[in-house]
């Protein structure tokens, strides 16, 4: 990986592709294209590569559960070792002009931490007095594992603190670094801008943000990844009973989310399995409408889950505060419709995949259409990588909800289509 501006890179190949998004789809497209000797520019708005999926935990019991989360870090490593790929972190597409190629301008917010100097000692992270001002990434890269979030940093609030800059033994931090701009020309564009997680507060009945022991599945993923255990937020004790509520934000026609997020059943079942494997005393229940398939051998996997996990076909209404820190879920039994109030130590909301916040702006800039839900629209039902503009291709959740495997599959397809468009596939013609 080359960091920063394109001017530094000798243009070894006449073909160049701009990949918008450094999540698993964008990384996979970029990696596949680079292997075909095509130069790739990845533009990623966050300070890290890997998108959402890099935060996901391993859900293995004794056996791999095939979630694919471990593939993301590996893909990041492959990308950063690939000289044909240039990564622009904290950057966004600012404008695009179409001639024979796509002229683009990227605006680049400062990294503040010089990736060439940072040794990832973590001193800044440990010393920072403001919560959330220095964030730690999840993947090993050649850059810094840390980044500064202006929204929480005291220096950007009132200039009162520059402890990290002063303390950094490598003098790698410069809080006064200015914004930058990169421009270039790409022969094709792959839109892999990803999704945003459903904001659980938009479904207030579950009391997310009010009840501390209601957390989102993404928060649970991060907790399992960071701590390798589940702790209840209110008292940091291991919960004995956990309820997953499915379809939070998905298949919700009231919110005009008339789509299935396709990943939540899979991650809920896999996390439930992983949690019960670690501690068989923990009782996990999954409240659902319809369990959706994930991956190969689904029937056998579902049957195995049923041995450890209780599946309740009911979408609970409100959640009440129970005794101590417990939460009460109300539901009706499937057998005879009897109403039940049951306490749980922890409630996990299986939040869904929503269209990316930047979709509207990107669609406008690239002259693409969005579908009724706000994902990028395709024109050929047989090939979901093709939007209405020649030379632009779609990959991953930018086009619609997908799991890691599907995102990688579509990213490969988009790379293949882009390479074909550039005349690179037909190598024997």
């Amino acid at each position, binding site marked *: 990986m080359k960091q920063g501006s394109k001017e530094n890179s000798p243009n070894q190949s006449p073909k160049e592709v701009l990949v918008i998004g450094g999540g698993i789809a964008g990384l996979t497209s970029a990696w596949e294209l680079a292997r075909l000797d095509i130069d790739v520019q990845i533009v990623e708005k966050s300070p890290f590569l890997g998108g959402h999926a890099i935060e996901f935990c391993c859900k293995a019991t004794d056996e791999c559960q095939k979630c694919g989360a471990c593939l993301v870090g590996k893909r990041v490593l492959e990308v950063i070792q690939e000289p044909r790929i240039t990564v622009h972190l904290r950057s966004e597409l600012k404008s695009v002009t179409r001639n024979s190629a796509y002229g683009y301008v990227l605006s680049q917010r400062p990294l503040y931490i010089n990736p060439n100097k940072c040794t990832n000692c973590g001193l800044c992270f440990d010393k920072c007095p403001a919560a959330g001002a220095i964030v730690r990434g*999840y993947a090993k890269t050649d850059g810094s594992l840390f980044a500064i979030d202006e929204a929480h940093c005291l220096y950007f609030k009132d200039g009162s603190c520059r402890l990290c800059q002063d303390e950094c033994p490598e003098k790698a931090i410069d809080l006064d670094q200015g914004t930058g701009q990169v421009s270039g020309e790409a022969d094709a564009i792959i839109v892999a801008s990803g999704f945003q997680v459903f904001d659980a507060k938009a479904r207030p009945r579950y009391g997310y943000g009010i009840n501390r022991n209601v957390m989102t599945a993404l928060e649970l993923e991060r907790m399992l990844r960071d701590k390798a255990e589940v702790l209840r937020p209110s008292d940091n004790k291991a919960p004995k009973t956990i309820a997953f509520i499915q379809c939070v934000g998905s298949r919700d026609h009231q919110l005009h989310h008339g789509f299935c997020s396709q990943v939540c059943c899979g991650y809920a079942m896999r996390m439930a399995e992983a949690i019960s494997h670690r501690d068989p005393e923990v009782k996990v229940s999954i409240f659902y409408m319809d369990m959706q398939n994930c991956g190969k*051998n689904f029937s056998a996997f579902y049957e195995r889950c049923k041995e450890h996990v209780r599946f309740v076909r009911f979408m609970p209404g409100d959640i009440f505060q129970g005794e101590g820190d417990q939460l009460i879920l109300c539901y009706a039994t499937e057998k005879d419709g009897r109403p039940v109030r049951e306490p749980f130590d922890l409630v996990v909301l299986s939040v869904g995949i929503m269209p990316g916040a930047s979709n509207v702006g990107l669609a406008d800039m690239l002259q693409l259409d969005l579908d009724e839900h706000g994902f990028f629209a395709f024109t050929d039902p047989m090939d979901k990588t093709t939007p209405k503009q020649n030379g632009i291709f779609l990959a991953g959740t930018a086009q619609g909800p997908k799991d890691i495997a599907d995102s990688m599959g579509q990213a490969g*397809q988009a790379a293949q289509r882009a390479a074909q468009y550039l005349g690179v596939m037909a190598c024997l013609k």
Partner: protein
Amino acid sequence: MPEVEALSAQGASMEEIPMETTVLIIGGGWSGMKVAAELISMGYGVVLAAGGTGIGGEPPGDHSASVNQKALTTLLGSVKKADGIEILTSTSLVSLTGVPGSFRARFEQSGEFLERDVGAVVVALETQRVSLAEAYGLSEDENILTQSQLEHVFASGEEKDRLLGGGSKDVLFLVGLQQEGGPVVMERAIESAINIQEAEGLQATILVGNVKLAQHGLETLYKQSREKGVLYFKLREPPHIKQNGVDVSIEFFDNVLHGPVVLRPDVLVVEEAIRSHPQASDVAQVLGIDRDAEGFLQSDNVHFFPTRSNREGVYVVGPARLSSSLAEGWKDAQNAVLEVRQLLGKGKRVVPREKAKIHRGKCTICLTCFRVCPHGAIYWDNRAVISPVACQGCGICASECPMDAIQLVDFRDDQIEDQILQLSATSVDGPQMIAFCCQNSAYEAAQMARVVGGSAPKGLQIVKVPCAGKVDVDYILTAFKAGVDGVLVLACHKDNCKSQQGNTFAEWRVEHAGNMLEESGLEKERLCFATIASNMPMEFVRITKEMEDKLNQLGPSRIKRGAAA
């Protein structure tokens, strides 16, 4: 956590290898043809083993709005008239020998044998649909149809009038109650139900287990069907079905109505299971590739996402690997084409001359390496030869070779043993442990643990191995002989090994070494096997700390104490 720098690569010399640019495609259905058309457009040659009936056939969800019929017609036309394609009908593949870039495929065609040289193989067998009527306890009758039969009825106006015409009729669908099913099954049922509902006088009702909607646009279709008046009953168990010829009654408890419901449909539509192709098992055996628990090709291992198989140069697409829509099959086809392009390129490939070396004097041609190689990289040419294209450098062959005739270029036994001795001679705080870490999982986790975890045991030393399957019993014993207090072998989780069985071999060897320790009077507990993922640094810290605690309880190793005395 001291560590000796990773052993430097030997600067292996590179070699240019010619690659055959004809590709064998097995399966003449829509996915196979898609692969063929793409490869032909790239200038590759294609041998299409189409099975008995030739190319084409019924597309999955043939009446589905999501299928672009025109695209199918165009595809069929382009494959039929293409140069550079040889279509073999009524042939069966007998063997595939050789290595990626240079396979020889042998076919049988009505008693004759044919041979073709191919660089890669793409398996695109279609699925088969199997009626579940029997599972529901239903026997054939004129008003009991499978989903496919219903689609045919709808396609033929005459039959439709005969079966569904003449006044009001109730049509009942059974879906996802005798199988888990999936979106492909669900989509067909919903589409047919909408067709029924739109016809005059017909009422469609669907009895369903889980409504499978995890596919683009299916929730919208499901909502549409309900708005059009299709009725749904969601059941947890199959209903009680009584059949007396054409009279069928279906009874179940409905938990919305809180009571028993009895339905007497005029027409009953039974779901079909989507199973792997009847020849999948034979093809897998001939190609030496694995199948999953449901019989589809390709083992369930994330490192094969989306179309790779356990044999390098053999790819599996769409319906050959799982029940998938036509569009998903084509997505796979394009991924496989990309893999082929990466593998065969313009007909030559530059690769490191060798990742592993066979000592000809020691080799007794016992075939062990050939059998254990998980990548199909070893072949025979009067002696064992390792294909530099297919070899992944996992080292399983080297560790399993009974004559110690194989050495990896970058991980030679003497280098690793030196590293072990060097590490064990370093003095550390606390119990001294050597962890053999698979570079694909534990090693990555260990690296991350340094940054995020901080507090891995001080006495922990790491030896990176290409795969846990390369950890020899000798390595473990060398470490103990040199006086370390404990040894960990850290592998990938079961089913997550890039070399499939590397973790299993490692576990066996640890067990074997443990028994040897016990016999020699050392505590077996000093040796630990664990599995871990690359993205779980804290898990690495937990495992190693648990080991440290255990070793603290056991005290220093007797060998170390003996040496000190």
